[in-house]
């Protein structure tokens, strides 16, 4: 297969970027999208040119490192698929493909297709954990957790932290990301003691880090490679409201 690629090139965070056009030939339809970019990189190196920088690691859709906006859609056109799991057989021979980094104010471009997603880590650092010192745990079967609850927590915990939800949201909101973690932990008995504190802290960090508010557009859900459902947002909203009321009466929730 042959493609025309328009790729965002930007020297560093302060330089201006632009789309640069490249041609690529004889790509196998069994190649993954990133393998296609590898081939292009090798071609560029052969010509003594510096290839585009892009993030990846596991290449199996789980580490959340890859982060390409493909033809305007984070992770490209296939539903529930990360860029690294996307295969060229889903494109047409001769097609023009535009490749850009995540576009969101809280994620500044570092170079070419690489952005800085550290604000997502900050949200977790502020409350996305269950405090449990190594050595202090009780037997694992002490809390019985009904299967439905465990499955619900697992669905939410499947988030890979790639940030596609933020990139897809016109407000650059991190609501789906934050809610997924809150829903995972707040639904489990182990997570209950810190439930309200968690919701308050994480939402407040989300605001501080410059993410926009959620206006229920739903683009995040559509872009999520792990199909995390909007239901988790309702979960956070519920816990957050209760936490706010509680904190009004008691300084520590």
């Amino acid at each position, binding site marked *: 297969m042959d493609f025309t690629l328009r790729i965002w090139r930007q020297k560093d965070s302060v330089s201006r970027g632009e789309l640069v056009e490249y041609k690529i030939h004889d790509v*196998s*339809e*069994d*190649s*993954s999208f*990133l*393998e296609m970019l*590898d*081939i292009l*990189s*090798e071609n560029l*190196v*052969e010509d*003594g040119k*510096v*290839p585009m*920088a892009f993030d990846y*690691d*596991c*290449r*199996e859709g*789980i*580490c959340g*490192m890859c982060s390409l906006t493909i033809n305007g859609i984070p992770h490209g056109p296939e539903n529930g*698929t990360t860029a690294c*799991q996307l295969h060229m057989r889903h494109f047409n021979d001769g097609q023009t493909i535009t490749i850009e980094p995540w576009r969101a104010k809280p994620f500044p471009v*570092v*170079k*070419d297709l*690489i952005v*800085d*997603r550290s604000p*997502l*880590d900050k949200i*977790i*650092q502020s409350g996305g*954990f*269950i405090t449990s010192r*190594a*050595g202090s*745990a*009780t*037997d*694992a*079967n002490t*809390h*019985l*957790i009904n*299967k439905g609850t*465990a499955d619900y*927590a*697992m669905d939410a*915990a*499947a988030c*890979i932290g790639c940030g596609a939800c933020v990139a897809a949201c016109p407000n650059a909101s991190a609501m789906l990301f934050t809610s997924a973690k809150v829903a*995972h*932990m707040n639904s*489990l008995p*182990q*997570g209950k003691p810190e439930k309200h504190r968690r919701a308050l802290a994480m939402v407040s960090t989300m605001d501080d880090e410059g993410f926009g508010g959620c206006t229920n557009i739903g683009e995040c859900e559509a872009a999520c490679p792990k199909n995390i459902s909007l239901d988790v947002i309702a979960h956070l909203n519920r816990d957050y409201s209760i936490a706010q009321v509680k904190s009004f009466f008691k300084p520590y929730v």
Partner: protein
Amino acid sequence: MKLNAKIPEGPLTQKWTSHKFNMKLVNPSNRRKYNVIVVGSGLAGGAAAASLAEQGYNVSCFCYQDSPRRAHSIAAQGGINASKNYQNDGDSVYRLFYDTVKGGDYRAREANVYRLAELSSDIIDQCVANGVPFAREYGGLLANRSFGGAQVSRTFYARGQTGQQLLLGTYSALSRQIGLGKVTMYNRHEMLDLVKVDNHAKGIIVRNMVTGKVTSHAADCVVIATGGYGNVFFLSTNAQGCNVTAAFRAHKQGAGFANPCYTQIHPTCIPVHGDKQSKLTLMSESLRNDGRIWVPKFAEDAAKVRDGMLDPNALSDDKRDYFLERKYPSFGNLAPRDISSRAAKEACDEGRGVASTGLGVFLDFRDAIQRDGKKAIEERYGNLFDMYQCITGDNPYVTPMMIFPAVHYTMGGLWVDYNLESTIPGMFVGGEANFSDHGANRLGASALMQGLSDGYFILPYTVGNYLGEQGVQAAGKITNEHPAFAEAENRVRARIDKLLSINGNESPRSFHKRLGNIIWEYCGMARSEEGLTTAIAKIKELRKDFWSNLRVVGESGNINPELERAGRVADFIEFGELMCRDALMREESCGGHFRIEHQTEEGEALRDDENFTFTGVWEHLGDNVEPRLHKEELIYENVKLATRSYK
């Protein structure tokens, strides 16, 4: 270099308990005076960093990804073992210990393995407390499955994403400590050298992968938890960035490297599709519970299948060879990884392989679907089937799945004693980066267990013991002003400049591929004296070529993936030679190491316990000097050495 395993006295079952009592403690109010460096944020590094910080030490943690949550532990699918015996099916600490020693083909250290089995229960408790959403039964209890051929159900799992959920557990504990200011996290930093002061590990040199800046970090001790070196094969199931650099640089500074030739080839990966491929994808081993593995009985039929002239479904059973069921009737399709992989290779060597390259065997669910119905199979493996279809474009409900062995795990690693301390005092090694617990072959679901036991429950004690021994007056005394740091920084900078200045014609990726081909061909599933000798010569040649014909575009003061790869490939090349040397030295077959000269008449691995019941530990003596072999004799006081049989 002296090897002293420091195995505590006393009966096996009491060693860890008495050792914990005998170790030095550091007064809680003094702990904040000590600095600890942890390199790696996977299960081993993440758990160690979080736990040491909880205890009160100042921790700096490093990883090469943009977030600690992306370490390659995230990719583990199948599960994690623990001897909880929740299923009441006869499991016990002793059985898990015994299975691990046997599975490792009697090449692991008894005391370490026993401790691992002993701690396995605590790990599950800790993970659940952390919020890991393990699979549950309807009654709310934790669910288990049998995995990797074990005869008890001791594997805990979170769908097909166990590694992800465990890692997110350690990541959240680590994040909490980062938020509290007890851990300083350095993302996108690559360790490029180890710094020793008076022969003790006292710091590391890292390159900031965004700015290119090379900096020194000093501490009272260093923990290396940088994962495995499977990418020496170029194609593997590891993440793209997995490397041997941190471990190998430490090796060059004096840390012994143990059993580098022990690598695990996993039988169920998606076959290679072409020469532009960058990685191999694992299909969970659980598929072997219901899928039947076969190739056409006759090479002519296989050729027709490869060319697409014959639909495999049209082959009747008498024209199929279910080779695992035939050779190992009692374990059948669940034979251990090393054995299954080798059997698949043999079938392909006989010209009976499928897939366009001839390097593939079928994993067929036809009979299972007939027996249990499509719905049941879909429930069990739906997500795996979808993943297979997404990658290959084939529908495994209709066309039999194709699989082929691929490199997956490395049992070899930096040598450590019972305290997980390397031959460099003050340098500890955890997780896949050390050699410790799996002998010559690792059992499924045991790597996650080992990473977490190292990180949560062993290093927090043994690191404290070392710091206690150094005394509080030594705490925080060495800073990066010490001349040893400037010297090491210069070494690192000179090497980066060298890589950038060769200006040849061949890319780092191309060299990596060439290396991978050599290693796969000669140091893969079947090894021989002749092949290994050839490989060593070829690698030497490749190394020369690398340092004269490499081309690294771009500059060092910026994100430069080409430069990063070049540095890693340079280490892989030298390491690859060491691996082949180790394989050549080990004149026996054991676990994942199969020397064709040493097999039974039926083609099974033949150990030589009289001469090779030892861990081979290599000491680096200088570039272009042959390394020296040291031996740690393995003493079996509890388990009787026997021939592994899965017939």
